[in-house]
């Protein structure tokens, strides 16, 4: 694994197109899922997807072989989303990711939910409704923990927050998830 990451770091430093292509191929769905969970907005997630990979290319020399690639990748993606929202709305970082303040990017009204557009399977519309109602800050940690299966420390690294914040968001996120699932069943 360490050797593989060392090769990856070397490829990124040199801007090797084959390495970047392989990374896009491998991480495309996971990155898009993460971006969608943070933004809750499909067009923004799509734009940030491209922007994230361009940043991976530009900052390739900063990647270190001891880092898990997805942690570094999600960290870049998150930074870009926050930066975009801050420039667009002129609010602070804390306010942007404050669960009480709501979702950063609201889906356009009258259109199908962004989750409904990309989710697959029978549970699609029900889970789309559930995810729509969960604040972005909780949706993000739920995605990182239960879909990406990252460790709490890795999540804290991505979110750039203390471990206690990550845990409290996870507890509240789980509670909200349970509540929303129950409500959609009624």
């Amino acid at each position: 694994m360490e050797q593989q990451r060392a090769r990856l770091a070397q490829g990124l430093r040199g801007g090797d197109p084959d390495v970047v292509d392989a990374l896009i191929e491998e991480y495309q769905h996971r990155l898009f899922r993460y971006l969608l969970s943070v933004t809750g907005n499909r067009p923004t997630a799509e734009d940030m997807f491209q922007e994230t990979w361009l940043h991976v290319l530009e900052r390739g020399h900063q990647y270190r072989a001891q880092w898990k690639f997805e942690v570094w990748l999600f960290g870049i993606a998150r930074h870009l989303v926050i930066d975009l929202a801050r420039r667009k709305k002129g609010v602070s970082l804390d306010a942007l990711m404050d669960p009480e303040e709501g979702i950063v990017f609201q889906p356009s009204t009258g259109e199908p939910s962004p989750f409904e557009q990309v989710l697959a399977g029978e549970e699609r519309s029900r889970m789309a409704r559930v995810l729509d109602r969960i604040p972005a800050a909780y949706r993000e940690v739920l995605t990182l923990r239960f879909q990406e299966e990252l460790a709490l420390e890795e999540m804290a690294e991505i979110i750039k927050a203390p471990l206690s914040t990550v845990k409290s968001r996870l507890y509240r996120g789980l509670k909200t998830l349970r509540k929303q699932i129950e409500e959609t069943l009624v």
Partner: protein
Amino acid sequence: MNQESHEHARELLQAARVEGISADGLRWLESHLAGCNECSKEANALAAAIESLRVLSVSAPADVVRRTSLAVHRRIELRRVNREPRVLLGMAAAISSAWTLFTTPYTWASFAWLGQAFRVHDMVWQLGFVVWWFLPGTVLSAIAAWRHLATPKPVSNPLAEMDWRAL
């Protein structure tokens, strides 16, 4: 079983999913769940909620991936094109610096000899030496800087081209 033990069981159920619980805690929870229908239902509901999240399948749109791949390749090509003249310039500068280091004493001696031969003041041939060495480089640098500033830059920030209506 009292209300407190049910609350403790529910706390442990969540903690087990978030940060893990001790072996003792797990044993206690299992024995509680075995005898408590209500908490057992809660455990199943929590497991089902997490599972429904875990099995969600999200795919990146193929056209977005293709567009991204093209943009990345374009950026790599742009970097390569920009890097080539820089490499040549670096090599030229290195060779020139090495040449300067080797030839400076001889040039200095030549200027001193010329100064004596034509009987000019030391200051004059020394100024001539300085101009001889630094003027061409200064002029070329000024031209290069002017050309760099005058060249229009490609749009390097795709955010500038984003459709903000969706936000």
